[in-house]
């Protein structure tokens, strides 16, 4: 069951405008028709009353002189000059009755012969005017019997205050119904024309009005699944309420997005912190027995009997344990080592170290170093970070690709930007990017970024990733050690 309130505004507003237009047009049309008919009626009354008075006055003399022909001429005057439109308002017939209510003269002698009593063969007049039941009205009276096809005007003809006859004018109601029909038809045509002009306009306006609301509604509807980019929303910028709503919505969306990102970052860093703690704890727990085991093997090798099979076995054990130690060491990033400050020469060293990689893939490597002197920060760690980042970049980029390194600092921080034009990192992988054993390529250890992250974390820095197609950039911000300066 579809309720009106459930219908989309996209239809509802145009429909309401259309309804308004139709109602207005219909009301205007009916008012016009009504006014016209009323004015016709009052025109007729005024016109007829005027004629009735004049005719009644003019009839006094012919009646007093018993001049029938003159009386006939008087009552036929109104019929002579009435043609066309004016004829519509003309009387249907005029009767002059003598005091016995016999027809003295009529404008239609064939229908109302002279001397005929009025009540013969005129049921309409008889019924509605109660002819024969005097007294007739003492002054002009308009009688409009609802059931009758005619309106009657009854005027006394008086000479010197004495009644000498009665003037009865009958007006057909036919012109009213004819005019009503004509007017209604005209009004209908006019209304339809107006509607034909206004409805499309109304529809257009309605759609136009509804459009921003619909856009907003659709945008809000989409928020549930994912947060759309505020810039991507086709919302109109305007100062009206809808425009303000859209603006507020965009602001809200931006805030939501920020919050979501923040949340994502918090989750990611929480997870990474937890992982870091777990890893550190496990590394310690593993390292303690591992040290013991390796010592035991070493002691046994030096002092025990040299049975070749045992030695071989021990060697296998020792290599395995060493591998464990290395892996654990790799996971357990120790940033405590105090080394010399990082200086621009370190970059040159790094470039030299990585020359083989660069040449192998014919990479266009553009180091940009905006450092003049040494920065008060552990050179070992920074070097490790840069090397890892560059190695990742070299692996990510394609043959003849481009890798850019930008090093710069301000008074508080050292910034390391590494960007490449290789395949970009999918959004869903960014969250897990810094977790150990997360490799984006075949054969990677998945520890490179983990190490970088751990170092950055331990140094109290920030790492951000921006990855779009053909451009992936890692930016690392590392705080400088103040007390060294």
């Amino acid at each position, binding site marked *: 069951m579809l309720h009106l309130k459930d219908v989309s505004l996209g239809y509802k507003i145009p429909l309401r405008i259309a309804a308004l237009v139709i109602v207005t047009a219909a009301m205007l049309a009916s008012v016009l028709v009504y006014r016209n008919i009323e004015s016709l009626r009052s025109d007729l009354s005024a016109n007829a009353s005027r004629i009735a008075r004049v005719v009644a006055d003019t009839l006094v003399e012919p009646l007093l002189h018993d*001049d*029938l*022909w003159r009386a*006939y001429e008087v009552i036929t005057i109104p019929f002579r000059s009435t043609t066309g439109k004016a004829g519509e308002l003309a009387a249907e017939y005029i009767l002059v009755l003598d005091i016995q209510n016999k027809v003295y003269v009529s404008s239609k002698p064939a229908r109302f012969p002279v*001397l005929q009593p009025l009540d013969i063969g005129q049921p309409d007049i008889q019924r509605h005017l109660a002819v024969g039941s005097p007294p007739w009205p003492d002054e002009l009276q308009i009688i409009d019997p609802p059931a009758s096809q005619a309106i009657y005007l009854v005027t006394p003809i008086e000479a010197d205050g004495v009644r000498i006859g009665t003037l009865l004018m009958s007006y057909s109601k036919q012109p009213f119904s004819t005019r009503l029909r004509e007017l209604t038809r005209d009004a209908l045509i006019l209304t339809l024309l107006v509607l034909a002009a206004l409805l499309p306009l109304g529809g257009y306006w309605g759609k136009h009005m509804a459009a921003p609301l619909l856009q907003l509604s659709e945008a809000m509807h989409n928020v549930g699944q994912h947060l759309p980019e505020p810039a991507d929303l086709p919302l109109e910028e305007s100062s009206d309420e809808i425009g303000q709503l859209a603006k507020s919505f965009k602001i809200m969306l931006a805030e939501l997005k920020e919050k979501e990102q923040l949340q994502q970052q918090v989750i990611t860093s929480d997870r990474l912190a937890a992982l870091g703690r777990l890893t550190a704890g496990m590394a310690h727990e593993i390292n303690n027995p591992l040290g013991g085991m390796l010592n035991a093997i070493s002691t046994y090798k030096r002092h025990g009997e040299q049975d070749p099979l045992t030695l071989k076995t021990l060697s296998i054990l020792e290599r395995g344990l060493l591998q464990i130690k290395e892996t654990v060491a790799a996971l357990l990033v120790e940033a405590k080592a105090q080394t010399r400050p990082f200086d621009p020469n370190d970059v040159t060293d790094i470039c030299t170290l990585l020359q083989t990689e660069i040449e192998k893939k014919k990479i266009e490597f553009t180091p940009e170093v905006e450092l003049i002197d040494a920065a008060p920060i552990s050179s070992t760690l920074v070097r490790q970070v840069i090397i890892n980042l560059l190695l990742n970049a070299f692996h990510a980029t394609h043959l003849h690709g481009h890798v850019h390194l930008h090093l710069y600092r301000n008074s508080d921080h050292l910034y390391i930007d590494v960007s490449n034009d290789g395949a970009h990192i999918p959004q869903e992988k960014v969250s897990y990017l810094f977790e150990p054993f997360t490799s984006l390529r075949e054969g990677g250890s998945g520890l490179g970024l983990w190490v970088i992250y751990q170092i950055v974390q331990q140094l109290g820095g920030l790492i951000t990733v921006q990855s779009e197609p053909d451009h992936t950039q890692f930016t690392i911000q590392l705080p400088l050690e103040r007390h060294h300066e």
Partner: protein
Amino acid sequence: MSKFLRLIPCLLLVLMLAPAHAAPDKVPAPVRIGLTPVFLDDQAAFVHAWRTYLEQRLRRPVSFVQRGSYREVVEMLRDGKLDFAWLCGYPYIRNLNRFRLTAVPLYKGEPLYRSYIIVPASDRKSRSLTDLRGKVFAFSDPDSNSGHLYPEYLLARQGLTSSAHFARTFYTWSHRKVVEAVAAELAQGGAVDGYIWDTLALTHPELTGKTRVIAESPQFGHPPIVANRNVAPELFKAMQAVLLRMAHDEAASPLLSTLNLDGFVYGDPRLFDGIADMSRYLDNTRDAPSQRR
């Protein structure tokens, strides 16, 4: 001749007075001619054209005087307020000593006409006045021969009077309006000048078509143009000559054609004997105990 001699002082008086009036502009006083509805006198354009014609032929101004009834015109002519008048034969024979026959219209080659009794075309039964008993009847003028005297005479011959025979009678004061009254069925019968009805039948067949002639009278003298006996003989002669010449005057032929007449001729007062007989008969009847009206 003695009458003529007796008129001389009057003429002298007129001649003495006339220059006093005419002296400033040398324009003689207009000839005053009374018109009655014995012809279709409601054609203003025709009346104007006829007046212009008469002025040209008489070489002096002419004024036509029209009044609502025969009686008024007759009285004006009698009182000398008119010089000439076109009257019905009936008032003429009643004023024979005062009026002088100037010319009689020639209708269908004769100075004669008839009275018609007409009924509405819808009335297919009535054959005579007698059949119209209890109906409403229209007369043209109390002083009209064809429109009143003749039907009254017909009824009187049967020992009837119009007031007793008809439920109601009325005068329309014009022959044409009798036709209109009967055509509209305001009256169920009417008496009308036959010449007028015939002329209307030519010009307004839609009007006469609504009426039907049920009876025609014998021929009577056509309504004549008469003069006050006091009219100057020169003027009388001049007028008579102009009227009589109309039949041969090319310029008058459109006028005669409108009038539906062939011209004007000398008339003999005996032409109107028939009317006089009827008038006398009715006067005798009226003197009898049975009162009219």
